[in-house]
């Protein structure tokens, strides 16, 4: 079983978000980066579990600069066998999908997993575009994945219930919460990752279809007002005149 997992680098969830260059660029100064949790906790871990059960290999792929190797090493420490970094600054989702599709097309992968979205731009589209470019079936938001031979069974969470479906390999699926339990890499995994192969390749002619015009932060949350239980009329007044909700 040959599995490809797409991983991306995102700001740590506690990051204070700010923009530069006239609000067109994310300000990465002093920001700590992590592997996108949906990629790591669900897609990568499930891929490793399936490899451990059926044999085969897990390759992780990332589009980005050399400083992304920090998250690539983490993926190798968690259990991926080798890694590919496409050496280019990702410009938009299509750019990333095209670069990965160009690499993956002739490598004989049984399937490709991604997280359901990245927690920074929340686009949720790379996996779908990738499937489109490869002309493979696409299953989004999968919460479970089993593979037997060349048939996979996946479950998706749908409004008020679950959908179970079957698909033949090769396919692309995006992983949601529930597909696996997050794994903490151990030190033996981290040292083993030192010698696992990481190949750097050029992006070919991937293209961006969109450009960012500007980003805008949500309005700052205001502080909580405490009102003594003896004065409910103050609460009514604030709801009327300040929050204007009643």
């Amino acid at each position, binding site marked *: 079983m040959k599995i490809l997992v797409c991983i991306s680098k995102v700001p740590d969830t*506690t990051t204070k978000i700010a923009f530069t260059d006239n609000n067109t660029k994310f300000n990465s100064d*002093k920001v700590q980066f*992590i592997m996108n949790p949906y990629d790591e906790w669900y897609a990568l871990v499930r891929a490793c579990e399936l490899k451990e059960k059926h044999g085969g290999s897990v390759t992780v792929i990332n589009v980005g600069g050399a400083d992304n*190797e*920090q998250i690539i*090493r*983490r993926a190798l*420490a968690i259990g991926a066998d080798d890694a590919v970094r496409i050496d280019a600054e990702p410009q938009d989702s299509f750019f990333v999908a095209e670069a990965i599709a160009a690499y993956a097309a002739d490598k004989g992968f049984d399937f490709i997993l991604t997280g359901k979205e990245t927690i920074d731009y929340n686009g949720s589209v790379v996996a779908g575009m990738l499937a489109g470019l490869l002309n493979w079936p696409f299953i989004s938001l999968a919460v479970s994945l089993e593979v037997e031979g060349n048939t996979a069974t996946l479950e998706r969470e749908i409004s008020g219930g679950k959908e179970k479906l079957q698909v033949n390999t090769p396919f692309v699926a995006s992983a949601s919460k529930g597909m696996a339990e997050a794994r*903490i*890499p*151990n*030190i*033996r995994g*981290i*040292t083993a990752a*030192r010698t696992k192969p990481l190949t750097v390749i050029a992006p070919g002619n991937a293209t961006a279809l969109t450009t960012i015009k500007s980003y805008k932060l949500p309005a700052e949350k205001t502080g909580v007002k405490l009102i003594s239980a003896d004065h409910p009329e103050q609460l009514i007044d604030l709801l009327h005149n300040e929050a204007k909700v009643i």
Partner: protein
Amino acid sequence: MYKDLYQHPDYYQLDELLTDEHKLIRDTVRQYVKKSLSPIIEDYAQRAEFPTHIVKELADIGAFGPSIPAEYGGGGLDYISYGIIMQELERCDSGVRSTASVQGSLVMYPIYKFGSEMQRRKYLPKLGSGEFLGCFGLTEPDHGSNPAGMITNIKDAGDHVILNGAKMWISNSPFADVAVVWAKDEAGDIRGLIVERGMEGFTTPETKGKWSLRASATGELVFDNVKVPKENIFPEVKGLKGPLTCLSSARYGIAWGALGAAMDCYDSALRYSKERIQFERPIGQFQLTQKKLAEMITEITKSQLMVWRLGVLMNEGRATPAQISMAKRNSVEVALNIAREARQIHGGMGITGEYSIMRHMMNLESVVTYEGTHDIHLLITGMDITGLNAFK
């Protein structure tokens, strides 16, 4: 449920001095701590119980003997990695770090460094995997700061020796499967030997009623005519150099570790000072609170640089025992001061188990005493710079 919100302070962007692997190791240990240790540690400390199940967990993440070669069950990491692991563990609790320090630096390290190949193969993999828990017996009831005066002794009896005496204040002892014990032979030389639980005449009574390191078990090692095979004696080392070499390695870990406790206290105090409102403003807005916090981060930043540099020297094999003494002493002092100030910032809440501060503060009272007391380290520095020995 208790939520561990810890974020480590890095005022001088010292992360840039670390490799990706160092940061990966730190994330790993921190994740483990947040998931598995922080939610339980207060309860175990309150009940003065050692969480035995963590031995296997600590082994699984690789906290035992990180700088021992992988072929002997260690992690094969550098000294900065080792320091980082100790820091993340002590950030949670000095008792947990003690368990790991003892296993790695005081049990696995001497077996690796001074043991025969047979001893290495027999014990190290089991200690590295947490199947065995070890302890280190140097201190005696009447010989603490002056271990050279020890009276525990071995007498030759053919293919084995007869061990007699008692050790006190021994971390992990009540649960240990093996003990590295230092005793004098008939020529008066200090020798190291491996004593196994189950050997006749060997008991490990627990020391009760501690107000410090409550989540770590401490006890005695009592030897009443214990027959120890000669093959359990370290062939390579004689004299105080043996135990002191181990202590250097453990003290180095404490220098990083105690700073972890300091960083946790600071992080908690900083957060609390922004949330706690008095006189209609966060207490962090008062100059006196800011002074406390500003001094804390200054001391933490200086000490972070110190231990990092010491780590580089350790990696190059150039760190001297006196340099290690200075860092151990400094980190513990900084941590104790910060714990006390942080406790004040937390007001009444600071004395409860809702916050880790009081536990850290009490733990640090052991850390400032064991592995060489605060004053002994000062005298080591004094001797090093003057060339004059204050111990004689």
